[in-house]
């Protein structure tokens, strides 16, 4: 049977439902326009969050690497500064010591020895530098300074060379003290080398340099041998003193190679850090772009949709007002 009538409640409920639907759409579209985010992210990625979660995890990790690379860069820069100081000191003192030996006047040797002693203090102070509460060359014992005072070092060294009678003996004793266990090793207050620091995904920076590095041992040995002269080693034996000064100068001079090697190693790490920084920030922007493609809405798209739904809602209002006036009761008064 075909219907002869359509119930009043039918039209009311259809209009109500459409109104509610359109209002919901307006709300959704306006939220998306304002926040730039999808209102239902799950539907946006069709229930597969793996890519988005991977991107977010990488972004958080990159934020972590941003702070570690800053730390490591500052640390390695500080090491390079100390290395520069050491280089300056040793070349200066090496020149003085070697020149004084050739002049063979006691005062020249004395002056060079005094300089060596003073500069030993400077070098050790530089090695004891702390950067934001961390010693540069103490390894894992980062709260300790790696070395004690210059006077303590010289006192220990004096004992080591006390039996020496020739310049050759002195040099051998100094070398032994600085290389064999129980000497310089025992004087070192730091700990084992620190482990490498993560600077990028799967990449670490190895800044495991301590005061025990041969570059420092040799430099300090040369300076300390010169400084021993200032403490009256072999006093009165002018030629032996000159010989020792000569040998100390030479030892300092030869230490340059090892220092250069160390500086180059640190330089490589610095370059690695810079490279990691650049790569990290490039990855960061690439991931952010990829993320916005997945999770964000196109603002132009969203505003067009808002406009469209707005128009539909207005037409619905118009229809509602027109239709509700369409009643027989209006005409049969």
């Amino acid at each position, binding site marked *: 049977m075909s*219907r*002869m*009538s*359509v*119930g*009043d*409640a*039918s039209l*009311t*409920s*259809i209009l109500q*439902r459409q109104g509610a639907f359109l209002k919901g759409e307006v709300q959704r579209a306006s939220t998306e326009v304002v926040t730039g*985010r999808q209102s239902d*992210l*799950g*539907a946006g*990625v*069709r*229930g*597969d*969050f*793996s890519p*988005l*979660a*991977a991107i*977010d*995890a990488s*972004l*958080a*990790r990159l*934020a*972590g*690497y941003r*702070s*570690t690379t800053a*730390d*490591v860069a500052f640390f390695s820069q500080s090491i390079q500064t100390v290395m520069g100081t050491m280089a300056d000191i040793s070349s200066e003192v090496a020149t003085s010591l070697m020149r004084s030996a050739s002049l063979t006047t006691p005062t020249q040797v004395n002056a060079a020895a005094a300089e060596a002693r003073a500069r030993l203090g400077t070098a050790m102070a530089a090695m004891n530098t702390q950067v934001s*509460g*961390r010693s540069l060359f*103490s*390894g*894992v*014992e*980062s*709260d300790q300074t790696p070395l004690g005072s210059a006077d303590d070092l010289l006192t220990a060294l004096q004992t080591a060379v006390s039996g020496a009678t020739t310049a050759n003996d002195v040099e051998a004793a100094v070398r032994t003290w600085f290389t064999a266990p129980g000497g310089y090793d025992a004087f070192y207050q730091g*700990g*084992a080398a*620190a*482990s490498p*620091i*993560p600077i990028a995904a799967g990449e670490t920076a190895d800044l495991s340099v301590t005061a025990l590095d041969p570059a420092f041992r040799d430099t300090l040995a040369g300076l300390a041998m010169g400084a021993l002269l200032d403490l009256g080693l072999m006093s009165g034996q002018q030629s032996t003193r000159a010989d020792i000064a000569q040998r100390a100068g030479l030892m300092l001079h030869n230490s340059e190679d090892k220092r250069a090697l160390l500086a180059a190693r640190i330089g490589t790490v610095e370059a690695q850090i810079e490279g990691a920084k650049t790569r990290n920030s490039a990855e960061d922007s690439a991931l952010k772009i990829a993320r916005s493609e997945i*999770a964000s809405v196109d603002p132009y798209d969203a505003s067009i949709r808002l406009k469209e739904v707005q128009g539909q809602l207005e037409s619905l209002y118009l229809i509602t007002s027109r239709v509700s006036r369409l*009643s*027989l*009761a209006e005409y*049969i008064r």
Partner: protein
Amino acid sequence: MSITSALSSALTGLSATSRQAEVLSSNVANATTPGYARREVQLGAAVLAGTGQGVAVIGVSRDVDQYLINERRLSQANDGERGLTAGFLGQVETAIGTPDIAGSLGARIAEFDQSLIEAASRPDAEARLALVASAARSLAGGLTQASDDIQQARVTADRQIASEVDTLNTSLKRIYQLNAELQSFTGAGYDVSALMDQRQQIIDSISAIVPLREVPRGMNQVALFTTGGVTLLDGPPASFSFSPTSTITPEMTIASGGLSGLEVNGRPVATGGATSPVLGGRLAGLFALRDDLAVAAQGKLDAMARDLVERFSAAGLDPTVAPGAPGLFTDQGAAFLPVNEVGLAGRIAMNAAADPAQGGALYRLRDGLGATTQGPPGNASLLGSLKLALTGQQPLSSGGFVAGSRSFASLAADILSDASARRLNADSDASFSAARLTALTDLEKQGGVDTDQELQMLLVIEKNYAANARVIQTVNDMIKTLIGLGS
């Protein structure tokens, strides 16, 4: 035949039109009343001694389409169940959290990962260790929160089942009473339309709870059956019983005896599965939520918690931890045992030894959980291992997942994706059943009162009334004429 019979015919016309006007006014007044079925006066020619004698009111009929109503009721039940499922799965997705929301599990994992990287570069810095501790605590807290949300949903479902069962029982009793009243009034020959409207409304109100079929019996009686085959009402009403549980823990299930099942007339019935007699309504939906969906969601969270605990208690990760002792994450402070997997997500906690909030010391994050004194402050090797433990690819110990190795973050993403895909599926099911219900409701409403049609009828009634009145006047004139003849 005679003038008086013309007069009485016209009088029946007057009374029939008044009755029509009366019914019509009731229709107009109830034009938007839900559950009101349009009435119509049934007219017939009155026959007296073989000849027509005016019009007779045969009765008042209710204009209902019972087929449509039955379909709509089934659709209501279906919609109730689907809507419930979609709502709960949406809750699960929210409990895990999409990664763009701060405080979601994904965001908490990323934060923990980031804090471990930052601490590895400055193991001496207390602030960075404190960040690791707070991120670890927040990750454990996030799992507990999600687990609590799911258990809370179970408690709510349990309470709702109790209230639905209550509604069902009360409504069935009310329908039983109405049936009785209808029987006596129908027998006495009254207009019972209002009572039938009322009964229809009550049946509508329970049709979302269980899918039911209405079977007419004589004397305006109805019997109600669920589509699964339980007699709800055929003569006396069935009685449902259920006892709610106020606190629900993950271990509690129907099987373990911790939760109540459903009884009909004192006999237990299956609440889930294809043989369940209440299958396919809100009631079955609530049982499914409490006993299947929430349990499955909790299982995923427990698997995630277990993976986290096992990653950080692997042998050799932290040399200061004795074998069998808990790692960075614990089962309420104790070591995790595989038999205790159910509900682990609700109990997981950060190891108190390294958590300043529980009286522990931060340096144990760097030097080992079993360390008794502080070690070298620059030692980052354990922190580096912890980071690898979190991000390393590892096979899962729990069942129910696609085999393969995952990092912890991708396990979390898999679980979220699973929850989200289920939710989207349920959403599309729910919107399909909602659309079907809407269509049926619209069709039913189209058969409701149309005021325009009623007004048209009113015009006709008015005209008929005037015509009948005119007949009476004319007959009156005729009688007067007859009387005038004699004078």
